C-alpha cells in the first residue's frame, strides 16, 4: 500500500483539486442543510454540529458519491442518517399529538388565515411534529421529489406520501387553533 507522502506535490495538487470539487458541490447547499438541521434538532448548537458532521462525513466518503446522481440528495441522506442515529436517540420528544384528533380537521378555504399566523407559530408547529413526519415535511419543503425523500429516509413511496399528508393536516389544524385563540384572546 502506498504511504501517504505529504511532500509529494503532485499528490497534494490532486487532493486540493478534489477538495475544491467537493466544496463547489457542498458549500452552495450549506444554507439549505443548516435550516433543515435547525428544524430537525430544534436548536442552533445541535444544528451546527449536525451540519458539520454531515459535511465532513460526506467529504470522507466523497469517493462513494456517484457522479451524475444528485449530490444534494446524497449529502441530505448522510445528514439524515446522522440525525436518526446520533441525535434522534437522545432528543427529548415533544408530547405526541394524537393524530385522530387532527385528521378530522377540515380546512376552511374561505379564510386566508395563514397571513395572520406568526412565523414563530409556524416554526413551533413544525418542531412539534413527530420526527418522521417532520423530516419528510422538511425534505419536501426543500424541493425533494417523493422518490428522493423515499431514498433519503429509507421509507417506501406510500409511507412518504402518507407522512407528508398527515404532517400537512396536523400543521394546518394546529395553526388554525392558534389563529382562533389569537382572534378570541
Amino acid at each position: 500500500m502506498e504511504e501517504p507522502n505529504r511532500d509529494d506535490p503532485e499528490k497534494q495538487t490532486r487532493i486540493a483539486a478534489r477538495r475544491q470539487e467537493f466544496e463547489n458541490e457542498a458549500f452552495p447547499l450549506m444554507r439549505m442543510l443548516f435550516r433543515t438541521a435547525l428544524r430537525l434538532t430544534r436548536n442552533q448548537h445541535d444544528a451546527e454540529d449536525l451540519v458539520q458532521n454531515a459535511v465532513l462525513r460526506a467529504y470522507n466518503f466523497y469517493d462513494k458519491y456517484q457522479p451524475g446522481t444528485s449530490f444534494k440528495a446524497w449529502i441530505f441522506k448522510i445528514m439524515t442518517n446522522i440525525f436518526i442515529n446520533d441525535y434522534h436517540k437522545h432528543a427529548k420528544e415533544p408530547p405526541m399529538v394524537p393524530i385522530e384528533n387532527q385528521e378530522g380537521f377540515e380546512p376552511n378555504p374561505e379564510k386566508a388565515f395563514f397571513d395572520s399566523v406568526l412565523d414563530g407559530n409556524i416554526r413551533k408547529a413544525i418542531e412539534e411534529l413527530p420526527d418522521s413526519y417532520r423530516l419528510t415535511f422538511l425534505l419536501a419543503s426543500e424541493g425533494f421529489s417523493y422518490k428522493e425523500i423515499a431514498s433519503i429516509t429509507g421509507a417506501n413511496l406510500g409511507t412518504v406520501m402518507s407522512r407528508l399528508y398527515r404532517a400537512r393536516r396536523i400543521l394546518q389544524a394546529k395553526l388554525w387553533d392558534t389563529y382562533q385563540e389569537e382572534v378570541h384572546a
Partner: protein
Amino acid sequence: MHCREEIETLYRYLDHELDEGEQTRFELHMRACVDCLRRFYYELHFQTVVVQTLHENEVPPTLVERIRLALHES
C-alpha cells in the same frame, strides 16, 4: 368538500408529482369543481407561507468557516 378522493391528487399536483396526462385531467377537473379549486389555492397559500418561513434562516458564517478549516485540515 365533495372531492375527498381528489386530495391526494391535489397534493401530488402541488408537489409536481403528476405525469402530464394526470396533470391535464386534474386541471380540467379544477375548472369544473369549485371545491377543488378553492382547496388548491388554500394548499398553495399554506405551502408558500411555510416555505417562506422555513427559508428565512441564514447559515452562520462562523459555521461555514469552521467547516472550511476542518476540510483543509483533514
